[in-house]
């Protein structure tokens, strides 16, 4: 957590994650090289390197872009989300090897600076078949580079989350550039329809996953709570909330997580201060609300991180009438102590007081 900036805080989970990425990449490259040596023994090693790294980078990009929506659709994919940036940085390095060898192979043999040659050797921007596809790859790699160098939390804090996230949203533009780089590049002469089909399947899969996840989330945000009394809105019944877990409700601007713990209900802002993770999808560990993404913690009664950490989230009033939970969407200042709502079980009825 954010007591001070530190280099990558290696822990067991990160190490396992990184070793798995490394092993996968080595296995993929070795398999590709061996299969190419068997099926196309005349290809030079440089060509094999260019192609193996390009396909690996493309595969990694599809995996990276599918993790987010998969984690939204099914919590079982959350562990993949935790260190997704490690995958992203790896993908950038693999892509950089591809780009470097591509420039070396196709642009470094003349009098012109290779980077100038990249943009001047082909200027058929008006043609699809002859489109300067390498420029598309260059700009995509540039975006990945900017994302890789700002992937550390240091940049998240210093650029502010809004700027940082805007920069990292450019991954979608980069994805489009890469697909067109492939379609207008290698596919124009390796015209086997299998390659087009594989690429199309990848794109359709990502589009489908994102639209499903996005639609699901927007639906959650669209639920209207109509019962209102003295500023409180009726959101659910007490029994719908599991012990040490939360239920989330979107009232006005943002979601609110209502946690049940130690016989009480507490309500905090759903957005984690670290990277805007969904606090309501976490659980209570050692008395603290724990974000499911990176483990940041907050005390349920005041939304403050336990010392020495300084993060705080807003708190809200919650009360129970009968067995119904009522929530006041008016937020208190971050870190404000609120007493919560006591759950009293009395002859199958629950009462409350605030």
């Amino acid at each position, binding site marked *: 957590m954010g007591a001070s900036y530190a280099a990558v805080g290696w822990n067991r989970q990160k190490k396992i994650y990184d070793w798995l990425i490394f092993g996968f990449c080595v296995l993929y490259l070795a398999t590709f090289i061996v299969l190419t040596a068997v099926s196309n023994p005349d290809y*030079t090693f*440089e060509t094999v390197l260019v192609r193996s790294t390009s396909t690996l980078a493309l595969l990694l990009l599809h995996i990276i872009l599918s993790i987010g929506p998969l984690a939204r659709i099914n919590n079982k994919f959350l562990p993949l989300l935790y260190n997704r940036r490690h995958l992203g940085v790896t993908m950038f390095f693999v892509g950089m090897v591809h780009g470097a060898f591509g420039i070396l192979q*196709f642009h470094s043999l003349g009098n012109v600076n290779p980077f100038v040659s990249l943009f001047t050797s082909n200027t058929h921007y008006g043609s*699809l*078949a002859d489109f300067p596809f390498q420029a598309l790859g260059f700009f995509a790699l540039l975006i990945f580079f900017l994302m890789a160098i700002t992937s550390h939390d240091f940049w998240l804090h210093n650029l502010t989350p809004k700027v940082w*996230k805007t920069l990292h949203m450019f991954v979608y533009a980069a*994805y489009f550039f890469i697909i067109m780089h492939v379609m207008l590049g290698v596919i124009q*002469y390796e015209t086997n329809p299998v390659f087009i089909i594989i690429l199309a399947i990848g*794109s359709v899969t990502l589009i489908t996953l*994102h639209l499903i996840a996005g639609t699901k989330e927007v639906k959650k945000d669209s639920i209207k709570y109509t019962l209102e009394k003295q500023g409180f809105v009726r959101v659910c019944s007490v029994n719908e909330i599991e012990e040490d877990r939360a239920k989330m409700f979107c009232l006005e601007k943002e979601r609110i997580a209502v946690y049940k713990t130690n016989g009480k209900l507490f309500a905090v802002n759903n957005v984690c201060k670290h990277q805007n993770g969904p606090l309501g999808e976490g659980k209570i560990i050692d008395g603290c609300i724990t974000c499911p993404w990176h483990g940041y913690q907050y005390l349920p009664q005041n939304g403050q991180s336990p010392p020495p950490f300084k993060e705080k989230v807003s708190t809200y009033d919650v009360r129970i009438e009968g067995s119904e939970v009522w929530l006041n969407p008016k937020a208190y200042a971050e870190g404000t102590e609120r007493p919560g709502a006591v759950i009293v079980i009395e002859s199958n009825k629950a009462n409350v007081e605030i």
Partner: protein
Amino acid sequence: MIKALRKKHLQVWTLLAILLPVGIIAAAIALPEQQYDKLLQPASTGALPVLVKINEMAGYTVSLRSSQDKTSWQLEWNNKSTLTSPSALIYQVDKSGDDISNALLIGRIDGKGVFRFGLRNSANDAAYHFVLYDIIHHRQINTVDF
């Protein structure tokens, strides 16, 4: 993820749901009927009318062309299959068997397709000698003599 970001993601992917299929289909439609590879081909020139000589080799056909009045000469290189060396250079040497140290660089070929290069006039129709050279591995791939 905050609400505004969720909305932005949905908007972005709705846009990509349109752009990606359009891009893929457009690129697929643009696939050339003749399979060719013109990665770094300079603007292609038309073939000169007179086919002076033709040399059939494994994987490529090399032709010498000229204008009607023999004032312009052209080397036409037709790669029928992808080269094993991805970037090969064509040098013109003075006589058969010469290396490229004092050779004239004619041009570069990348893959399948037809490549045409202008040549200086020759006093003798049969005076052309070419070396196909792999610049990355520094080795001679082949020689072509007319």
